[in-house]
């Protein structure tokens, strides 16, 4: 007999099964290409954690995924599917560019950096608010609008970076370098300055901001009144109106928070690593955020774990390029697609089987769950 799964199985075992399925399929594809999947896995693990500086790189990627994963998750709590993280991050980066390029001749670096952080969030938020407003007040489907807004953002970037923002004497679409010191310090610099030897990596202070964001989102969703209303909006707009709140306003606020989080991703790339605005610095991280949120079940702790996994995949995947002729880091994109498929679209596939297995092992106990159901009259009437 089938039995509903207890919560702990649902949040721990089931995601693992889904990820395992994605990895098994990836392994089969690698084997079909003619390489040994286990060798590939070993190289990726070494590349992500073992080699000198590897962990720093892994955490640097993780930072991106925490931001974009949180962005998707916050919107998901209001049942909004924000596919626009990519575009929101781009515009966030553009915001940083405006602040820094405009002010670095006149203001001290530290002040500019402190200014750039909220501006990245605000620019990202604006790129989230517009689709949010369109959904809330004009009824346009947020999935389609955010897809369109990614393309629009990308065109704006091309137009500006190859036009008025292009560095003089440059041929590639990018701005000039930021002034000396206008950046988020890289962790190995700080560590070395404190006397701890640490290998060079792009990991920078934005990782700390990402961790703060994780905690802040947890508090927002589960400990604040706004979070409560956001979750209620996700499940039933009618109930929210009944309770005296305006769901349109909540949708717009949620999309502002979501877009702001995505915009913060630009801190890592623009202020932490590039120190100038370049084209396509988002590199698909916005879409990876969807996989991260799905895997992490929209919970900050799950998102942290999923971001670590994806950080490791990206860093380890880059290592594949060096070791193999035939498999490259695009492999990671494929694995990412499979993870979205198995932990998102096919999330329920293994549930009936799991319920049957669980039913076999717990046929006689679970008096509590029966008790809860005995009070429930059948709805077939």
């Amino acid at each position, binding site marked *: 007999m089938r039995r509903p799964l207890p919560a702990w199985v649902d949040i721990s075992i089931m995601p693992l099964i889904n990820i395992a399925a994605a990895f098994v399929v990836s392994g089969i594809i690698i084997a079909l290409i003619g390489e040994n999947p286990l060798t590939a896995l070993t190289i990726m693990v070494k590349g992500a954690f073992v080699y000198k500086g590897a962990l720093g790189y892994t955490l640097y990627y993780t930072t991106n995924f925490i931001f974009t994963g949180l962005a998707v998750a916050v919107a998901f709590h209001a049942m909004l599917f924000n596919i626009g993280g990519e575009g929101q991050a781009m515009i966030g980066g553009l915001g940083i560019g405006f602040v820094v390029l405009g002010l670095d001749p006149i203001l001290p670096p530290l002040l500019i950096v402190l200014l750039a952080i909220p501006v990245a969030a605000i620019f990202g938020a604006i790129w989230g608010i517009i689709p949010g407003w369109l959904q809330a007040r*004009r009824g346009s489907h947020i999935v389609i609008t955010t897809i369109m807004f990614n393309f629009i953002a990308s*065109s704006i970037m091309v137009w500006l970076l190859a036009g008025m923002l292009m560095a003089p004497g440059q041929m590639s679409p990018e701005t000039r370098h930021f002034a000396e010191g206008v950046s988020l310090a890289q962790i190995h610099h700080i560590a070395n300055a404190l006397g701890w030897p640490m290998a060079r990596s792009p990991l920078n202070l934005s990782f700390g901001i990402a961790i703060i964001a994780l905690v802040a989102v947890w508090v927002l969703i589960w400990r604040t009144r706004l979070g409560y209303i956001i979750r209620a909006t996700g499940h039933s707009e009618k109930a929210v109106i009944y309770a005296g709140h305006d769901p349109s306003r909540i949708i717009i606020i949620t999309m502002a928070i979501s877009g702001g989080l995505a915009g913060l991703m630009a801190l890592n790339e623009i202020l932490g690593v590039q120190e100038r605005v370049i084209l396509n610095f988002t590199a698909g991280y916005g879409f990876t955020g969807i996989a991260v949120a799905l895997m992490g079940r929209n919970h900050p702790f799950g998102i942290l774990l999923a971001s670590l996994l994806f950080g490791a995949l990206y860093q380890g995947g880059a290592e594949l390029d060096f070791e193999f002729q035939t498999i490259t880091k695009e492999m990671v994109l494929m694995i990412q697609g499979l993870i*979205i498929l198995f932990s998102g679209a096919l999330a329920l596939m293994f549930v009936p089987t799991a319920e049957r297995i669980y039913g076999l092992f717990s046929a006689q106990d679970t008096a509590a769950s029966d008790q809860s159901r005995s009070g429930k009259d059948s709805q077939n009437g």
Partner: protein
Amino acid sequence: MAELWLQFVLTIDATLRVATPLILCAMAGIFSERSGIIDISLEGKMLLSAFTAATVAALYGSPWLGLFCAVIVSMIFSLIHGFACITHRGNQVISGLAINILASGLTVTVGIAIFAQGGQTPFLMSEQRFSAISLPFAEAAKNIPIIGTIYAEVISGHNLLVWVALLSVFLTGYVLFRTSFGLRLRAVGEKPEAVDTAGISVTLMRYQAVLIAGLLCGIAGAYLSIAHGASFGRDMTAGKGYIALAAMIFGHWRPIPSLMACLMFGFLDAIAARLQGVEIPFFGPMPTDLILVLPYVLTVILLAGFIGRAVPPKAIGQPYVKER
């Protein structure tokens, strides 16, 4: 004057070439979404089939075999989409997104494994592709003003798949609105329980719809790599699947209006290509990027209800669950 006219005619000709994959994908989208299944995986399926067509044509030399395999691969991914959304009631947007990302990674990975050219496929000889079909007397007609140039430049000189795309519009219209199958397909996207209680399987109807969508996407992909182009390049669809989706919404999920939207978007693309580098007085170079973004901007404006209202099929996006 004659020069300007020729430029115009050539732009129209280019419009048709650019619009062909959009038209095929928009029709694919109509079939899928009219049955209630959101299909943002048009992009991924087109990419996969472009890759398959180019690979098979390069390895075996036959464009027909390439087309056939492209269609099969695209339909297999339609089945995966269906398996997730219809059988397992998964989120249709997530499933489509997964296929798009998977396609982007898989094509490059497999491409490198086979050809070791960084994800590219080798350039195809003309006999490995669908080449242009010159209609009779096209050369001679060139000299006849207006009608002759239209005949020679716009009508003649297209490959077979362009004609297939145009034909697909009329077939889609016929199947949806003139057959009993079409009636059921539209009903399943509006009110699936009405179809179920009438003794027709909702599942089967929806699988049929996504398979037809796969077929059309497969042709679109093959067009890109072995008819319009002569090889596969990474991410060569470059958002065309999403533009087709936009065109379908613009056309209110109807074949002829969607065709018009595809042609309009194709025209924007063609004109942007022609205006590349043209200087506008007091402004500087033509902002062609901003022309290319118009389809997306227009779709946003349309969806916001500022120009008419786009009403999607009612049951779209919702997995069908029998009430208990």
